[in-house]
């Protein structure tokens, strides 16, 4: 499938930059309303027949061409990220579908309190929008992506019925659920953007396991198979192998399009009446900072100086328990089993503000077991190797502690003075330090996860206090707010400085909650697109 190729002089209504989780949602909603849309995407379509799942050596690809780290993968469509100044490595995928190609599709929403952090807890800032405003867009996005889950979770306000029943917990999930249950703690089968039954022309999951390497079945929602077919059918046009160099301005100071390189490196111009940035929490500030002009010498839409600032990751600690029996952990979607939000809302007696979730994923595959998985303590080599390996293989449960990071201006993305991508465009550089609040939160989570694993029957428990290859969520670098001095975009997603330039990806997030952000990013993107349509009409 491919969209038609936009011509260089073809002025469109809206230019969307990036075809991932947010860009696809916006393109679909705008095109469905009759708005002319062109999307530029630096990657290509992913052919499901070329995924590693068709090979016996599928797991090897996690370390090479299917690594989540662009600095490891180094495909032509990737750009390098200087992450030497960060203990967390940013992860992303560049393709139609963006990082939804390699995500694990754990799909919780932000809670109502996550939008009012300043009012409730006196830290960070409130969002200028709230859960009630976003709720219809959460629901719409759930229908578009297809969500497996179970209603009735007391951690959330009531939700509409999920599209399919929850992902089966299997032996591993049930073992861990019993642990949470013995402690009287909250747990619930995860909302997952993975179909357990056929839905909307897509097949149900066959439980093969490594969703992080793509999904050959199409059961896992990635926007190349959810939003894009519908967006293209509605008239949106998608140009692949199109890497945007800079956003251009007209004489009136409004965005009027972008310059981009095609797959051969040739430079083209795409004109537009409005521009929507959906290039993720690192790619978007990179592009704004690369779009300097006399009017914006410090980067486009950066009069506040906040473009690239307030970078938030979700810091992850990983806690592993070893059990004395097989857990069948290789069966089922790798990232999805159950969630616990027992320690989600603020309780200052714990020594930190805000909170975290536990995400219980599946077991480790053969290579990951040998290399120590997320803990990184590889099985010893030598004559004791097989005994040590057998003690561990298929006998571990890993609990991820996903902490709410708070925005701090010194955590930021800027431009590397020397590093560039294949088209010579300056690459991003990341500076990040883990705050004391986040450290205390992770330490609390490590101790509680250990208790839960022991309650589930684990013997030995080990922890990785901060996962380096854990920068899945890139947020906050062009934050939303009412005050142009303290935010980059307004409550409608428009840049304060350039009113026809919109931002819709994780950059917009004022705070990052203690859960995976994609469903919220997409709901915000749909809300912003809806506003564009309403104002147009």
């Amino acid at each position, binding site marked *: 499938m491919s969209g038609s190729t936009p011509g260089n002089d073809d002025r469109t209504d809206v230019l969307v930059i990036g075809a991932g989780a947010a860009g696809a949602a916006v393109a679909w909603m705008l095109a469905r309303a009759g708005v002319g849309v062109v999307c530029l995407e630096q990657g290509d379509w992913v052919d499901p027949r070329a995924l590693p799942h068709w090979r016996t050596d599928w797991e090897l690809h996690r370390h090479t061409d299917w690594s989540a780290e662009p600095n490891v993968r180094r495909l032509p469509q990737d750009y390098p990220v200087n992450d030497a100044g960060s203990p967390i490595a940013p992860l992303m995928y560049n393709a139609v579908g963006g990082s939804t190609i390699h995500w694990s599709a754990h799909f919780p929403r932000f809670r109502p309190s996550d939008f009012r952090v300043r009012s409730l807890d006196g830290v960070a800032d409130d969002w200028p929008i*709230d859960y009630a405003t976003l709720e219809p867009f959460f629901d719409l996005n759930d229908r578009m992506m297809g969500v497996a889950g179970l209603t009735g979770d007391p951690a959330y306000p009531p939700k509409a019925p999920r599209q399919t029943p929850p992902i089966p917990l299997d032996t591993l999930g049930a073992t861990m659920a019993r642990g949470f249950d013995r402690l009287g703690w909250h747990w619930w089968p995860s909302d997952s953007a993975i179909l357990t039954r056929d839905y909307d022309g897509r097949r149900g999951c066959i439980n093969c396991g490594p969703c992080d390497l793509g999904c050959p079945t199409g059961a896992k929602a990635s926007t190349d198979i959810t939003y894009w077919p519908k967006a293209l059918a509605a008239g949106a046009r998608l140009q692949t192998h199109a890497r945007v160099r800079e956003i251009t301005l007209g004489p009136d100071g409004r965005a009027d399009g972008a310059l981009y390189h095609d797959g051969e490196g040739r430079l083209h111009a795409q004109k537009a009446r409005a521009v929507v940035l959906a290039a993720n929490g690192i790619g978007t500030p990179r592009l704004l900072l690369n779009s300097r002009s006399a009017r914006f010498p410090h980067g486009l839409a950066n009069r506040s100086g906040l473009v690239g600032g307030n970078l938030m990751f979700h810091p992850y600690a990983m806690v592993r328990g070893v059990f004395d029996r097989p857990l069948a952990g290789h069966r089922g979607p790798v990232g999805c089993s159950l969630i616990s939000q027992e320690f989600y809302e603020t309780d200052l007696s714990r020594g930190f503000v805000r909170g975290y979730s536990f995400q219980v994923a599946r077991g480790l595959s053969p290579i990951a077991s040998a*290399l120590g998985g997320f803990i990184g303590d590889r099985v010893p080599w030598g004559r004791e190797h097989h005994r040590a390996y057998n003690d561990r293989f298929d006998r571990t449960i890993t609990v991820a502690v996903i902490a709410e990071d708070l925005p701090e201006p010194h955590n930021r993305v800027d431009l590397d003075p020397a590093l560039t991508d294949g088209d010579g465009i300056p690459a991003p550089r990341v500076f990040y330090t883990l705050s004391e609040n986040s450290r205390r939160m992770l330490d609390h989570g490590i101790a509680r996860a250990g208790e839960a694993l022991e309650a589930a029957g684990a013997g030995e428990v080990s922890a990785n206090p901060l996962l380096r290859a854990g920068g899945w969520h890139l947020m906050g670098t062009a934050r939303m707010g009412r005050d142009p001095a303290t935010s980059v975009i307004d409550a409608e997603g428009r840049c304060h400085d350039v009113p026809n330039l919109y931002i819709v990806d994780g950059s917009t997030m004022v705070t990052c909650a203690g859960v995976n952000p994609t469903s919220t990013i997409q709901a915000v993107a749909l809300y912003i697109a809806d506003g564009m349509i309403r104002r147009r009409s």
Partner: protein
Amino acid sequence: MTEETVATRRDLLALVLDTLVPASGGFPGAGAVALDHVLAMAAASADLERLLSQGLRAVEEASRANAAAGLASLSDDERENVLRRVERSHAEFFEALVRHTYDGYYSHPTVIARLGLDASPLHPRGHRVEAVDLPDLARVSARGPLHRPA
């Protein structure tokens, strides 16, 4: 490198891999199933090739300090001791070697099958998930709303 040199290097590396992951209990040694992978990775990366060459030289030198005939003439215990010395003196080489050995070993169909898994590609077969007894979610629901009103 001459053919003879290449063969000698293969033999030495196979012996090293067999010391890292020996044949045991029906599992093959890594020299039999991971050697080609390690060599392919080295052929694809100049950095890894350099590390491998330096590391294997260190193994040879450490072996000859024990016996003139080299690693092949040593007992299993002595081979392991030699590699532990090289692990300390050439940490970067050893870390890469173990990682690529495990990669090659635990992706090989013979080993996958020995682990009790289906060694055929994951797709289109997938996995059958068994029904299991779950704790009653009514206990969780009975606690009432856990989220703060905004």
